[in-house]
């Protein structure tokens, strides 16, 4: 039996693990697979970190695959310093890690994910100013006895973090430069409803706030200075978005912009190297796509696997992915362009006292955007109508009330 070609995968996040699952879906894999991960643990469900933070779930509950699984498949997994890649030598087809190990590859897959953004204001290096990205971050937040916490950023991650910490008994204030939370997924009406809900659960808000500096004592943060306001805090969580983690790619000369550039088959500028997940930037017709949601990343994994396994040459086709989630128990569904342009038409159903809101943005009798808040019945139906570009004029009167209100065919 000849030696199998060597496949090295850098990254063991949700995308990386999904790729492994795909490769071993049929039992065996034509590669000798090595997985390198800078994190100390086996792969876990990063989306569930909020629940872990809130104490609603334990560590086992978020683990993607146990170590035993890697062993059974014959996957070599290196974590921590052994898995933290510091260099890629494309000529030698070799990667080397922090601990000095080197791994040769025939094929290399980059699934390095992303890095949380930092906000460059004075005091950003103080202890207690941190991000919320990894299991280690969660552990650090729960260490020590923090009473006052400031969360910077009113996006989904910030809200979930704040919600988790409030449930751990901390006093949490969200500092956001936008007028309403989750501005990417919600319009201002829905954002306002969400803010009311979260406030009713004890989270405080400083909206449209400008962060000036983090104040510290003895190298540890003790407060946040805003323009015109000051918040004492022994813990500051910065959720200011993420950027593709492409330091390695840049260093080895792979073509990169915001992310490492790939075509729609996830191939980088080096034929031996594919990349997937949050670290890539895909040129797709005239758009440049980045990926932050799990669904397209899973699709990346399928495509990469199919290429590696020599099957059909599948290509990635971007489809609008709805946001369909629960924020602290509140159902939210949003998709497409829910902030209308001048020429768009808008249908809304609004029961603010009961935290219910529904909105469709319509153009040329087609749905362009959907936003459901509080009750997400029919979200997928709207998604389908939007994706198929269905002319909704025959049932426009009933449209916002859902499929069951449609006149009988």
């Amino acid at each position, binding site marked *: 039996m000849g030696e199998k070609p060597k496949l090295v995968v850098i990254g063991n996040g949700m995308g990386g693990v999904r790729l492994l699952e795909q490769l071993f879906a049929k039992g065996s894999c034509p590669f000798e697979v090595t997985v390198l991960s800078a994190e100390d643990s086996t792969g876990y469900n990063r989306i569930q970190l909020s629940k872990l933070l809130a104490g609603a779930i334990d560590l086992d509950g978020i683990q993607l695959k146990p170590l035993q699984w890697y062993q059974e498949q014959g996957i070599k997994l290196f974590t921590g310093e052994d898995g933290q890649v510091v260099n890629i030598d494309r000529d030698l087809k070799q990667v080397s890690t922090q601990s000095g190990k080197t791994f040769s590859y025939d094929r290399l897959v980059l699934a390095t994910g992303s890095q949380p953004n930092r906000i460059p204001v004075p005091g950003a290096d103080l202890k207690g100013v941190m991000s919320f990205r990894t299991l280690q971050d969660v552990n650090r937040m729960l260490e020590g006895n923090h009473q006052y916490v400031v969360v910077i950023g009113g996006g989904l991650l910030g809200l979930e973090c704040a919600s988790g910490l409030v449930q751990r008994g901390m006093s949490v204030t969200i500092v956001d430069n936008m007028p309403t939370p989750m501005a990417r997924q919600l319009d201002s009406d829905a954002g306002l409803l969400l803010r009311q809900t979260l406030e009713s659960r004890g989270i405080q808000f400083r909206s449209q706030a400008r962060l000036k500096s983090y104040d510290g004592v003895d190298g540890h943060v003790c407060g946040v200075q805003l323009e015109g306001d000051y918040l004492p805090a022994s813990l500051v969580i910065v959720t200011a978005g993420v950027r593709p983690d492409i330091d390695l790619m840049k260093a080895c000369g792979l073509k990169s912009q915001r992310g490492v550039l790939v075509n729609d088959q996830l191939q980088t500028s080096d034929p031996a190297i594919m990349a997937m997940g949050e670290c890539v930037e895909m040129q797709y017709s005239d758009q440049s796509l980045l990926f932050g949601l799990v669904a397209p990343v899973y699709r990346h994994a399928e495509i990469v696997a199919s290429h590696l396994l020599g099957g059909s040459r599948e290509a990635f086709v971007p489809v609008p992915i709805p946001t369909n989630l629960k924020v602290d128990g509140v159902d939210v569904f949003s998709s497409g362009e829910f902030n209308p342009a001048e*020429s*768009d*038409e*808008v*249908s*809304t*159903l*609004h*029961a*603010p*006292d*009961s935290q*219910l809101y529904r909105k469709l943005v319509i153009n040329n009798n087609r749905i362009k955007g959907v936003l459901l808040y*509080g*009750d997400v019945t029919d979200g997928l139906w709207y998604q389908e109508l939007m994706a198929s570009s269905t002319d909704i004029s025959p049932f*426009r*009167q*009933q449209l*916002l*009330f*859902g499929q*069951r*209100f449609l006149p*009988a065919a």
Partner: protein
Amino acid sequence: MAVCASVKPDFSKTINTTCAYCGVGCGITANVIDPDLHVVEIKGREDHPANYGRLCSKGSALGETVSLEGRLLHPKIHGKTVVWSEALDEVTRRLQETIEQYGPDAVALYGSGQLLTEDYYVANKLMKGFIGSANMDTNSRLCMASTVAGQKRAFGSDTVPNTYQDLEMASLLILVGSNTAWCHPVLFQRIRAMKEQRPEMKVVVIDPRKTDTCDIADLHLPIRPGTDALLFNGLLSWLAEQGTIDLPYIEKHTNDFGQSLEVARASFRDYSQLSELCGLDQDTVFQFFHWFSTTEKTVTAWSQGVNQSSSGTDKVNAIINCHLATGRIGLPGSGPLSLTGQPNAMGGREVGGLANQLAAHMDFSPEDIDRVGRFWGTTNMARSLGKTAVDLFRAIDRGAIRFLWVMGTNPVVSMPDGKSIIKALKKCPTVVVSDCIEKTDTTALAGIVLPAAPWSEKDGTVTNSERRISRQRALFQLAGESKPDWWILTQVAKRLGHSDAFDFANSADIFREHAALSGFENNAAGKIRDFNIGTKASISDHEYESMDPFQWPVIEDKSQQRLFSTGGFYTEDRRAKFVPTHWQKAANSINAEYPLLLNTGRVRDHWHTMTRTGLSPRLNQHTDEPFLAIHPEDAGSWQLQDQMLCKVSSEFGDAIVRVKHSEAQRVGEVFMPMHWTRQNSQSGFCGVLVNPVVDPVSKQPDLKHTPVKLEPFYHTGNGVLFSREQLSFTGVEYVTEVRSEQGFRYELAGSGLDNLSALSDFNKRFEKIEYVDAKSGSQYDGCRVLWLDQHQVQAIWMFGEGRSACDRQWLQSCFGKSVTALEAWYFLSGTPPKGEDAGRQVCACFGVGEKTICRTVRDNNLREAAEVGEYLKAGTNCGSCVPEIRQLIASIE
């Protein structure tokens, strides 16, 4: 103050009474369940000869109309509640002052076919015997005056020769100007049942509209309005030509046949021209003539299509002429039969409640005046005819009449040229209105309002279209300060110093005097009169209380079912008179400016001005908005789409109503219902449009023949508001209020809809759920708001262009449920999810909707209305909706 001493009703048992509505006069058995809360179960009285247990949709819903809601319960002077003595003193003082300064003819009473005979008798006696003026007219002038005049011309008396049974016994039944199916539904059901039993029985309907009555017609003559007399002139000529006249009868019992036939023949050139003038197909005309001439048992029944006409009296005589010529009168299954509109128009005629009658079928001959004066013991008798309705209000306008007392009717709505009535009443120094309802268009113009007992609280008698006198009995005690009309009148009479003549303790006292007058000198020595119930003059209170329905005249203690089959008319020589009927075109014809003809009439489930039927959610469902029915061809040329609003204008005024395309209309003619008033509509009443032309003989207004023009009513908005609370709107051009189970519904159109104060008020008080569909270009395509409080829907506002296509019944039903906000916001869809939509209600008795019926018909492949009844019960109670169910079946096939 005297105490009303009428016999106290015994609440412990069921009470037999008479229906409040049309002239059929159906017997009702009322089971009073809760006398305090006015809860009563209404059923048809099994042994009443008018209906034998049947009831129509309106009668069945009487129980829903007897609550205290909207009732006038205290006397008021200029809006201030006063005690009875003060109100009566004030009425008396003004009456006296008016008479002293301007004479008795400056006083007028305007009564109603809704008054009981006893009330009517007292009013008439006071006016014609003691005030000394005959200015006592009634809304019967709008209803049956032409028949009264026609019958008097032909028979010498206002006598209906036949009886309801004859409708069933006839081999040929001709219905002229009568939508019997809707306006006399129980008679229609009797006819229908008989026709099903005897399919050879023929029914001819002569009506410009293809009404639901045509459902049982073998032949429909969609006649041009105003040409009925011409058609019957043609028939008379035909009968003479065919030799099917009854010469012996003519010779023995009538006068002036030759002259009448000559006039009839001269009124048209030939039958082809006659058909053309009548707007009819000649074959159809011949078919009708042929059937008439060859069918011995023929009944011709007519109603307002004949009476409410500038040639109404001639139409009546043209019909009667044909019956006299064939000797078909007062025979079983044969004769002319007028169908009265109101429950007691006949009783009013019997006491002499019209301005051209004196009393008890006596007129203003010196002998009659003398006789009645002696009977009443007065020297102040009215000596000449009084003013009839249209003239009466004109006299008010010119200041000749300065004191008006309106009883139980709403002339501001029902009179033609409505604007002139308002103008006149505003000028009139004293307007007194006795009514059971506080807010009507007429009470709004009254200085003094007096709370009269309503149907469910009064006690007396009524007479139906077949001369049958029935007892009407109180179901409840008098509410608040209300009093019977007769009591109010006697109190004023006593204050005027006529205590002896008006010393009535109860309605039985009055009835006895009325009966005595009918028999007073009613013999060959005096003058034989048709109306004679003299033998009832001595009945006891107990006999009156338990009196069974009977037909007058009562001769030698025997009710006379039919009259005139062997002559015996009430003319000088006891012979009937053929009246020559010179046919003329209707007084007001269409012209370049007003090129369409407006017809008016009733809808199935409403009565008069809706003060009662409007209270019943069930009855509001069949027709909930005032409308204009128009043939699609006309609608096209006037650019009126179905369901849009249109402005109807005549020389006299304007209205805004909903357009309803209808193939049942003749081209060039439109129809509007008469029921809507300022209390439930801003602009949908037809009285303001109608011309005040009257028949020269009967003085009955031509309510069905007004030239009008139309234009689309363009407006900025259109919406429907459902509310638990009753609301009012200012500055909105089109408003119609509809009572529903849990509140009110308002159909609104015009300006100001985006800024209704009611809505901002709801916003302050209730949780708001809003739906907006904003289209580019227009501000709102749709905006719908629901207000919720304590899990109850408080109001729903559906705003949009065009008549919002929401399911009104479903939305109304949402008010009865306890709901969360999430459940409630789906109501803003305006239509229920999936196939639960029942559709517009067709069967009011069992609440069955159009869509439910259509689904059931389709799913089970039904062919007959009776089969639908088996599945859904629809149409099995009153049967009024059976024609509609048949139409639905036909439309599905």
